[in-house]
């Protein structure tokens, strides 16, 4: 662009930067910043909106009606959560599993809250592609997924692929022995 303004004589020194060069760079930089600034609201508008975030406030779950071995479904932030009361046998069996043999090693104690080892609270979507595993099925006293055959044990640890990780634990805390609050860990709201 710059060298169209005046034909430099042959053999002359390289032309100096002109005002047009300056305008070209300044306009280009301005356009790049402007394009980014305009693109941002469009992308940001697609992330969870304020109403969705507000609807994701913590929920309380009453544990009293749940009997031994029972699994109930609750929803928090539109996500399915299993609350399961483990039987004595399941607790004993799960404690006996050697951690080193697990695909995603996690000790029994890390899956339940201290002092409430009968209660398991996990997200109810398979960590493979998000299907809902069926309770009390499979070979490990836990869940098996109808979609791609993953199996989880009674505390939601993956025991057979293709799921890569254990069922994740949502943030929750015991309010009393028969009540939990999902969405908060020790008084702090989840991000």
């Amino acid at each position, binding site marked *: 662009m710059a060298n169209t303004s005046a034909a430099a004589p042959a053999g002359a020194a390289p032309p100096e930067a002109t005002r047009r060069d300056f305008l070209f760079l300044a306009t280009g930089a301005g356009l790049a910043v402007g394009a980014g600034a305009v693109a941002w609201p469009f*992308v940001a508008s*697609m*992330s*969870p*909106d304020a109403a*969705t975030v507000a609807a*994701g406030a913590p929920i309380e779950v009453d544990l009293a009606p749940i009997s031994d071995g029972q699994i109930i*479904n609750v*929803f928090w*932030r*539109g*996500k*399915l959560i299993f609350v399961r009361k483990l039987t004595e046998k399941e607790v004993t069996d799960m404690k006996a599993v050697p951690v080193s043999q697990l695909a995603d090693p996690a000790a029994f104690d890390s899956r339940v809250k201290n002092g409430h080892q009968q209660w398991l609270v996990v997200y*109810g*979507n398979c960590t*493979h*592609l*998000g*299907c*809902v595993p069926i309770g009390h099925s499979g070979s490990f006293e836990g869940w098996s*997924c*109808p*979609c*791609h*055959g993953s199996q989880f044990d009674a505390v939601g640890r993956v025991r057979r*692929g*293709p*799921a*890569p990780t254990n069922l994740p634990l949502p943030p929750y805390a015991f309010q009393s022995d028969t009540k939990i609050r999902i969405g908060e860990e020790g008084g702090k709201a989840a991000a």
Partner: protein
Amino acid sequence: MSAHASNAYVPKSRLAKWFESRLPLVGLVHSSFVAYPVPRNLNYFWTFGAILSAFLGIQIITGVWLAMHYEPSAKGAFDSVEHIMRDVNYGWLLRYMHANGASMFFVAVYVHIFRALYYGSYKAPREVLYILGVVIYLLMMATAFLGYTLPWGQMSFWGATVITNILAAIPVVGDTIQSLLWGGYSVGNPTVNRFFSLHFLLPWMIAGVVVLHVWALHVTGQNNPAGIPIKSSKDAVPFTPYATVKDVFATVVFMILFAWFVFYQPNYLGHADNYVPANPAVTPAHIVPEWYFLPFYAILRAVPDKLGGVILMFSAVVILAFAPWLDTSRVRSANYRPIYRQFFWVFVAVCFLLGWLGAKPPEGGYVVASQICTAYYFAHFLIVMPLCGLYETPTKLPGSILESVTGPGKQVSGAGMPVGAAAAPTTKG
């Protein structure tokens, strides 16, 4: 291409001359769809481009009409589809045309793709034309997936869940992409709302790429069953009436198949589970995608690793775009490639087998078979295509397109078409 000059459009009336000198639109249509020279040996596999154009039109028109009655929300979507089926005049017809039209679209595109692979239509100078076709195919897959989620039945919901979880496997940015698609913490109301918007957008993008696809086609000219270029005007016939009539005839025949599905088997290609409203607490016992995604679904499940399966599945589509450089043979048409031709049909069989395996439960022998077929699928592109071209001895190519039709040394009059018919097709000889 010499036919171009002799049959160029010449405006006759004053109005036509006035318009043509300001916007040469009629001349463009004339040179592209009337005078355009078409290889005289094209078979019916070359009519699927026209069939696909027809289905793009059908999908867009029925889709716009369905959108007049559809409600894109988690609460209203399922009921509004039932409202279309029960209350809207001819709503059942619009919806069945749209749903089965999508399946017919994929039937036609698979014939179109296999035709390109058999006759070497991807080879120079048609690489860009072919890659644009792969881009259209990718856009079609995205559009079909988005559309399938809109009725908000069980298969819609869980299809959306599974596919968006596939995207979450992408390292680093996967979770962000997933959150932007969901618009929440899980598949829900914002998801169906934006999927509707995107489902409306993508067909217009397809239409745009189709324009580029046809443009590129008309620059390089059509491939043909002999795989050799047009060398003289005797090798070609004008697009109108020869290709026009053949394309329309084939489209009408294909519409019989379409109508049979719409009127007699409208739900055969769907899943009964999608007539159950979406329930985020229960996954259907046997979840499979629509039939046209089954081969890729089988590839996804063949790998016991989440990210690995996702990479392989996307690679299975993307590898198509590299065919022009993976195939080392200079002979285009598999008619003259005795070894490659056999590998080609094995490849077609493997694709069908993968489709069958994709519908089976992921256990035992099915998984092993899927793994073998997946390996073969990629071997076809990465081993067979490069090596076959190097070691195979092709049979003798005909001297010209005309010779491939008439046999060596014969005259035009032997071809079953009167002399001069190509030059003046609209006059009776």
